């Protein structure tokens, strides 16, 4: 496992660069891409995942454990995804949602069921396999979504503001749970967020979509980059 490498990954639309990342994410490391909405965060995510629209142009490479996955379709990249909304499949039970993710090489009903039950145990949801996802709480759904992503045995994980819909208390706990799982499994992960607190909680590097380091974590929330604004507001001369 050598991690996730974004090798001069550059995405442009109509000649404007939206994403410019040259970055190595080590196993177990979480790098945050932060910026306001419309800054190219979701474009970066779509590029790494392989779901960019035809209006975008991509150059550079995405290497996962040394293999170039750039030409591969999403399903073959082995890059897991956690969305802002948990997107549990509403017509399947909690257990079936997890079994959907489980590789088919694990054969036999009981063997598959066993893996699903174990995953639910790890998520603190023992005996939830037959539940309707719609009856779960927000925190429970978030945990199921994470376990589903992990059961697919990804080699890297993308997190698309996965905590933003949770209330403050729950958010801290779910975030800790997700980060623990990432470190325990040694997965390279990229978190995309506009939330400073989430970014700081990862303890890793914080970049904007164009690859620039975001202002030092010590500055208070809300005062992000006032100096840049001023530079534009009061042109010299």
């Amino acid at each position, binding site marked *: 496992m050598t991690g996730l490498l974004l090798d001069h990954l550059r995405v442009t639309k109509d000649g404007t660069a939206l994403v410019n990342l040259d970055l190595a994410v080590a196993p177990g490391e979480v790098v945050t891409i932060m910026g306001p909405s419309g800054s190219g965060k979701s474009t970066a995510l779509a590029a790494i*995942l*392989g*779901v960019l*629209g*035809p209006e975008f142009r991509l150059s550079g490479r995405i290497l996962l454990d040394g293999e170039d996955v750039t030409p591969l*379709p*999403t*399903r*073959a*990249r*082995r*890059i*897991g*995804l956690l*969305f802002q*909304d948990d*997107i549990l*499949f*509403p*017509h399947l*039970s909690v257990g079936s949602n997890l079994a*959907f*993710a489980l*590789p088919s090489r694990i054969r036999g009903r009981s063997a598959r069921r066993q893996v699903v039950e174990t995953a639910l145990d790890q998520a603190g949801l023992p005996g939830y396999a037959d539940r*309707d*996802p*719609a*009856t779960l709480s927000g925190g429970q759904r978030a945990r199921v979504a994470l376990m*589903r*992503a992990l059961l*697919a045995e*990804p080699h890297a994980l*993308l997190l698309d503001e996965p905590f933003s819909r949770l209330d403050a208390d729950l958010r801290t706990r779910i975030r800790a749970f997700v980060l623990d799982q990432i470190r325990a499994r040694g997965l390279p992960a990229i978190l995309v967020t506009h939330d400073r607190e989430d970014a700081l909680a990862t303890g890793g590097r914080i970049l904007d979509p164009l690859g620039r380091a975001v202002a030092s974590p010590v500055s208070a929330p809300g005062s992000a980059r006032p100096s840049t604004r001023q530079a534009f507001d009061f042109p010299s001369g």
Partner: protein
Amino acid sequence: MAGPVIAGLAGNVLPLIGTDAIGRLLAWPGLGGAVRLSVVTGVVSTLCAVAISLAIVAALQGGRRFGLLMHALSPLLALPHAAAALGLAFLIAPSGWIVRLLSPWATGWATPPDLLILNDPGGIALTLGLVVKEVPFLLLMLLAALPQADATRRMMLTQSLGYGRVSGWLLAVLPAVWPQLRLPVYAVLGYAMTSVDMGVILGPSLPPPLSVQVAAWMMHPDLSWRGPAAAAALLQLGLVLVVLGIARLAERPLARVGRHWAESGLRRQGLDRIATPLATATALAVVVLVAGGMLGMVLWSVAGLWPFPDALPAPLTLATWTRAAPSLTATATATLAIAILSTGAALALCLGCLEAETRFGLAPGTAAMGLLYLPLIVPQTAFVPGLQVMVLAVGAADTVPAVAAAHLVFVLPYVFLSLAPPWRAWDRRIAVVAAALGASEARTFWHLRLPMLLRPVLTAAAVGMAVSVGQYLPTLLIGGGRITTLTSEAVALASGGNRRIIGAYAVLQMLLPAAGFLLALAVPTLAFRHRRGMRAA
């Protein structure tokens, strides 16, 4: 869908060349009357249906009564035209329910009056029948178009500016809705000007509407009448195109009137006081006429003795059903087989088309939508005979698959129109999540998209079944009289006047589509009874 239409047209027109067909058509003394009848009933009924639908939505939408009204109107959509026409015929005939309820205490009639209410030479009964059948269709199309027109907020805005409901709707919502309503209205217009089955049941006979005459010539034992029939069908197509052209050209001056009104600032709040009760009454009249007619059909099918002017039959008996059971069963089975074949094929084609659209990011343009509507707008009489020629040429005439294939031409557009909006509204992120979990496109389709869209898929199937069950001319011409369905039998029986057996056929015509819609409601509800996230919106 343009293929069968163009091929059918060609198959109809080419044999005309070098014959005296046009001369024989022009020599037919009924031509002027038939043309006038077709154009007047078609245009008047469409204008009325559009006006009524617009008034109902403008005056009532958002209100308490509107929801109830929609619940009452939507089942009428599933009803085949012929069944609705037969029911209406029973209501308004001189010996029908309305006269019975008024006799003898109000009218003094002890025997049915000698009045030509049904099949009147002016085509009023036919116009009425077309209006009551098309209003539910147009209402549904309007409702589907409203969300994209941002109707709710526009209505709030105009009302906050002091406009009445109706005037606010006409000025601010209608212009946004119209582009999506145009093709459905054209389909209604094309149908109304050329319908055969409704013309046979409700229209006059000397002369009949042009479409009825075309069908009669087509089925004439003397094959030389096919020439004039083809020429008349072509004339019909020309008439429809001219009327559609006029409708298109009329939009500009009408829009100018609307603009002047908008610029004048006239709030016209008084309009609501007239339009609201009027719209409510008309909507109720539509429901009562169709539902009353169907109830009458049910009663006739179980009527023992029902002499005039009794309002109800006595005694009730199943004699009609038992006596006709063999032929009813055989016809219903053939109807079902044709409906299942054509709907199954339509569903497979539509799902394939929509799935390809999803996978390859294709987006159909307005032109594609126009093509889809082509079989609904071009008169059936103009291209179905051509299809018949082709079916005869390949030796597949009078077979169930051939009839089903002809039905497919009309089933497919409706299935697509019903299925495409929910399909395209499906949350694409689900596919992204599945791909990130390593699922193939096929797996996403079979395990996620299809089951999650089970409800709209089954609804589209029910729509397709209803369309197939309701087909008359394609069944008649392609089936060649040997393959008959409930609709073709019911229309054939209409002139005979045996109301008990007509009632039985009409009831089955109504039950078959209704059963389809019930299944489309029940199956997903049952399958997803433990899935709260899959409840109907």
